[in-house]
């Protein structure tokens, strides 16, 4: 039992617990009841907060929602809220853990591709909402001396995402987004890995591109800040020349900056 006049912090902590999970000090003794009981008044806020978060997850995971149906999705989202709650008022950043959650969510065990579809949706969502960077000045890049090009380390665009998913997830996502039921019905459950690059575009929002495994590894190494020379050599060691891949990555604005590191690896 708390004292009669709680501090502001005590009120906020108690109301928070009552809204999130009902564990902890009960705020009801602090609240004026009257014709409507304190519990019912708190329930209005619990409903508003949970409804907002379920809606947020539905907006960032429309394909998952379509695959499992609105009712199942809402149930899964409410389970997810029991273990994840946003830490900040930027709700576009809430939901990163939904895909890993779905992977372990027993009622979805019959849909082994679901978590990967959610991973792809989240990458697209992040690509759409990542901060605006200043673009890469290609003339500055062109001015780098040829003998220094191997020493380049690139900075990835904040909206760029690289994913290795099973093929079914990729094809299901494309079919649902394209509202193509025939393609959806033809998805092969026997799957191989699919190497994907997700990037924001000027015109269409976000695009999902399929890469070869070698190109994906090359892009991943550059995005992690590997020196260009080492990244190219890693490809060459597997018999793949990737100069053209670099050109394609640059042309699709995958990088927003670079440094020259002539001290060598790592």
């Amino acid at each position, binding site marked *: 039992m708390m004292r009669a006049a709680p501090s502001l912090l005590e009120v*906020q902590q108690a109301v928070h617990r009552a809204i999130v999970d009902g564990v902890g000090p009960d705020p009801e003794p602090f609240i004026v009841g009257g014709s409507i009981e*304190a519990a019912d008044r708190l329930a209005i806020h619990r409903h508003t907060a949970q409804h907002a978060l379920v809606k947020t997850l539905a907006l960032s995971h429309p394909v998952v929602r379509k695959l499992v149906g609105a009712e199942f999705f809402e149930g899964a989202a409410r389970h997810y809220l029991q273990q994840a709650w946003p830490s900040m008022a930027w709700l576009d950043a809430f939901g990163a853990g939904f895909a890993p959650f779905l992977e372990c969510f027993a009622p979805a065990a019959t849909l082994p591709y679901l978590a990967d579809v959610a991973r792809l949706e989240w990458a697209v969502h992040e690509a759409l909402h990542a901060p605006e960077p200043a673009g890469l000045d290609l003339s500055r890049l062109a001015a780098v001396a040829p003998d220094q090009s191997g020493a380049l380390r690139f900075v990835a665009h904040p909206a760029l995402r690289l994913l290795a998913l099973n093929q079914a997830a990729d094809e299901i996502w494309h079919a649902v987004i394209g509202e193509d039921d025939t393609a959806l019905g033809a998805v092969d459950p026997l799957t191989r890995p699919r190497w994907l690059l997700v990037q924001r575009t000027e015109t269409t929002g976000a695009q999902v591109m399929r890469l070869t495994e070698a190109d994906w590894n090359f892009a991943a190494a550059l995005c992690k800040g590997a020196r260009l020379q080492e990244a190219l050599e890693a490809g060459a060691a597997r018999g793949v020349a990737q100069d053209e891949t670099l050109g394609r990555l640059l042309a699709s604005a995958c990088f927003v900056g670079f440094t020259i590191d002539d001290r060598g690896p790592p």
Partner: protein
Amino acid sequence: MVGAGMPAMNVRTAIPARAGVGLRFAHHRAVIEERPPLPWFEVHTENYLGGGPNLRALEDVRRLYPVSLHGVGLSLGSAQGLDATHLDRVADLADRIEPSLLSDHLSWCVVDGHYLPDLLPLPMTEEALTVVCRNVDAAQQHFRRQILVENPSSYLRYRHSTIPEWEFLAAVSRRTGCAVLCDVNNIHVSACNHGWSAQAYLDALPADAVAQIHLAGHSLRALEDGRAIRIDDHGSRVAPEVWALYRQALLRFGPLPTLIEWDNDIPPLDVLLDEAAIADRLLSEADHDARRAVAA
């Protein structure tokens, strides 16, 4: 205190005293392509904290219209102070959009690093008043401008509250120099839910500090045993009682920038234009009355 070095910007003059509407994603394209005859738009700050297509659309809108940024996430009532990262994000957006008005609510939504997506009511105590004033000061210092603080809709009150909400809000404005965003629908909703007099609430607000008005629809949620509570859900047209209270607000505050808010079951843009036209008619009547009063 009002921050030293803060520009003496008077937000009353920045946006015309006419009716604008809340801009939601569904209407981005229509607004940019059709350029409806509206004097200004307001958006929810937290919907544009990232980059990408939504931010680009807002920048396009901003090139065509004055814009007000209305926040739900500052948590001006947080006992633990404001979130520095969130302040920075809002300041970055404000630098980019150059909004005419920058506002948030007399409420809280963050505690112990957890965010609750709702506008939660504060106990109306001297302690809470000190906290809110400290946070409003910090926000105005951070943004280097005056902010507006909006009266919330509320569904619960605390037993240990000692200050009427209208006096609390007036004190926040007096002590920090912030402006007041008077949400007429919220006054009506809270007054009905708690048995207050909406007119007395309106009369107690500091007329010189009120710089903007919000109007929205609300619903009546039935509980068991025939009990009901009004919910500020922004999902319908402005109620007749709220239009009547708006007339009273204009009599007291004079013509002010007025916003039509609609966030759920968002209708076609034309419906929002209709609501704005009603507000505009009342604004011109108020303006006419004010001129006649001066002439007399």
